[in-house]
């Protein structure tokens, strides 16, 4: 089974978020990065488990500059066999999806995994776009995935329940919580990571039709007003006149 896992690099969850350049760019100063948890904990680990059960290989792919290599090597330490880095700034979802699709096409993978979203921009777009470029089915929000002999069963999260889907490979799936459990790389894995192939390829020309105009931070939290439980009239007045929600 040939498996491809898309991994991206996201700011650490404790990062302070700020913007520069007229609020149109994310301020990266002082930010430390991690592998996007949905990619690492669920997509990558499930792919490795499938390889362990069925044989085959797990390749990880990232679109980004050389400074992403450290994140990529973590994926190799956890258990991926090799990696591809498309040497380009990940400008937009469509651009990234095009780059991944090119590599996926060339590699002929049975399943392409993405995380259900990245924890920074929360786009949830790449998987669907890659599937479209590849002309393959796309299953989003997978919480479990069983695959063998060209067939797969994916359970996916839907509002208020679970939907079970059966389909044949190849396809693209996005992984949500539940598909696997975080794996900590072991010492040997870490020592081996540098010896595994990390192939750097140049991007193909691709459209980048959208432009980010600006980002806005949510309004800062304001203080809390305490209302005496005996004074419901005051609460109603505040909700009406100040909060303007009733």
């Amino acid at each position: 089974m040939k498996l491809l896992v898309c991994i991206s690099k996201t700011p650490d969850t404790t990062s302070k978020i700020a913007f520069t350049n007229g609020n149109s760019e994310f301020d990266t100063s002082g930010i430390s990065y991690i592998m996007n948890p949905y990619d690492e904990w669920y997509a990558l680990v499930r792919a490795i488990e499938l390889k362990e059960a069925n044989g085959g290989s797990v390749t990880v792919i990232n679109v980004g500059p050389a400074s992403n290599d450290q994140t990529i090597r973590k994926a190799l330490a956890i258990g991926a066999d090799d990696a591809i880095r498309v040497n380009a700034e990940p400008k937009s979802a469509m651009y990234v999806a095009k780059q991944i699709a090119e590599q996926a096409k060339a590699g002929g993978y049975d399943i392409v995994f993405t995380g259900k979203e990245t924890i920074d921009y929360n786009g949830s777009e790449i998987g669907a776009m890659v599937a479209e470029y590849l002309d393959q089915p796309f299953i989003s929000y997978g919480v479990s995935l069983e695959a063998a002999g060209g067939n797969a069963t994916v359970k996916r999260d839907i509002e208020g329940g679970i939907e079970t889907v059966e389909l044949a490979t190849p396809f693209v799936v996005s992984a949500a919580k539940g598909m696997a459990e975080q794996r900590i790389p072991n010492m040997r894995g870490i020592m081996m990571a540098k010896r595994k192939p990390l192939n750097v390829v140049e991007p193909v020309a691709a459209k980048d039709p959208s432009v980010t105009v600006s980002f806005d931070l949510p309004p800062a939290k304001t203080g809390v007003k305490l209302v005496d439980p005996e004074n419901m009239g005051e609460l109603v007045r505040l909700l009406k006149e100040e909060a303007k929600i009733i």
Partner: protein
Amino acid sequence: MVNTLEEKKSLKGGEFLLKDSSYKDTFIPEEMNEDQQMVRDMVLDFIKNEIYPIDARMEKLEEGLNELVLEKAAALGLLGTHMPEAYGGLEMDTNTNTVITDYFGSVGNGFTVTYAVQTGIGMLPLLYFGTEEQKQKYLVPAISAEKKVCYCLTEPSSGSDALSAKTRADLSEDGKHYTINGQKMWISSSGFADTFIVFAQVDGDKFTGFIVDGGTPGLTLGAEEEKMGIHASSTRQVFFENVKVPAENVLGKIGEGHKIAFNVLNVGRYKLGAMCVGGARKGIDLSVKYANERNQFRKPIASFGAIKHKLGEQTIRLFAVESALYRASHLMQELKHDLMKGGKSFTEATLISAEEYAMECAILKVIGSEMSDYVVDEAVQIHGGMGFSEETAVSRAYRDSRISRIYEGTNEINRLLTVNTLMKRVMKQELDFLSPAMAVQKELMEGTTTPLGEGKYGQEEKTIKDFKKAILMVLGSAAKLQMEGKLNLKEEQEIVMNISDMIMDTFVAESLLLRIQKLGELTEKPQSQEIYDAILKVYFTDMNAKIAKDGMDAIVSFAEGDAMKGLLSGLRKFTKYPPINVKKARRLVADTLIEANGYCL
């Protein structure tokens, strides 16, 4: 002892006091390579995933959990990173091992002790002194955590004076086994250990190491001790009543148990210093977060100068000790590397490098544990009443930290040892103390002064030279009186303590300077150089005052009249670091953490 060092510019153990060091030769944590960062993150992930979820149960010492976590750590290869590949280890370099131990220090419960016992005082006697069969039988399963190990040295009547142990071992007439009788006390991990490293007097007077299997008839355990802290660690008495141990389970040579005990302790001390660093980093992180979150007088308490002082000072002390830790680690690593190149085995090289830097290891233990106690004490204070509540992590951290000043040799013993080791090496002419001490005498007579160094840190370079001169002057004069029979330092421990503190503070201050000089050349670093400079200058201001005070206390305790006046005037000359606005500098450091809402250096 070690000739390799003669050819290299690396410092010998204790030699930092007698020679200049260059920042180019040191290692700083900001230089951690990608693998080391990955290893660090892995340790933190391990703690988060495998320890935090069962933390409350571990704190109650629920049966089986220490073993379980050890086994999980072993499965990831975490217990053998400092062990030879031939026995299932990974032979990683010393600095990477320091990173692992450092970050294991942040566990937040007594598992730190379990980990340190298994990988340190548990495995090392087997590695250093075990025969090939003993290594296969006991070391291999210790690295894989199939066997849990404990180390039985202390007895009810022998703690610091460990060699006076009363437990005895007598050889059977047929020479096939020893019979051990006696009692050990305060034995960490004994509640679940499979392998007991035991020290006993053969024929009542030959101090010797043994390997005893758990479950051997006659070996029994006392109840769990009710301890002030590290509740997650098992600590019991171990009783030996006619315990028969096969003769092949003697560890090392008969009568050479002290070699095992001392060599193992060198590494144990450095490891403990490393864990204190990791624990303190976490204590500061909790302090900053709470200070930002807690409002009084309608402001976060982090906005008050008194609290900023604490956050700044906690950080400065940690940062300084951390610099010393990685510097010493790198010295050991370099020596080990050279020894292995020269044909020594991994094991021999590990043993010799720790022995060479025994003094630095003792220093790390003392400064690490005292820094950690300071940090957790202030962490409780920053938390106010909540800090006194068992609901907060700092309350436990405060109790857990306290043991570090007691075990692995009390801090008093390690202070004595620091000066004794230095003097012994001087006597054996392994270190040239005399020429630099004479140079100081000459300088005092001629009234010359140390010139400022070149570059941005010229003042600090001069100050370090001066601190060393102060030590050479005080220790040199005391030693001279001792040789003339006018002073018996053995009976004047207060003086030795003063001198020991001067030595330790100088080691740390110099390590800090080297780190900050090296940071000055790094383009990518967590903070701007201004913050590091603030740390450096506050620390030097403080150490200048401390060394002046310790030096004065020592001098007035052994000198009189003109001699005393001369020494005091020399001391003044050597402790002239120009003080800076420490309030402003500490605030700068504290504000950096407050802004980041956590430890961020």
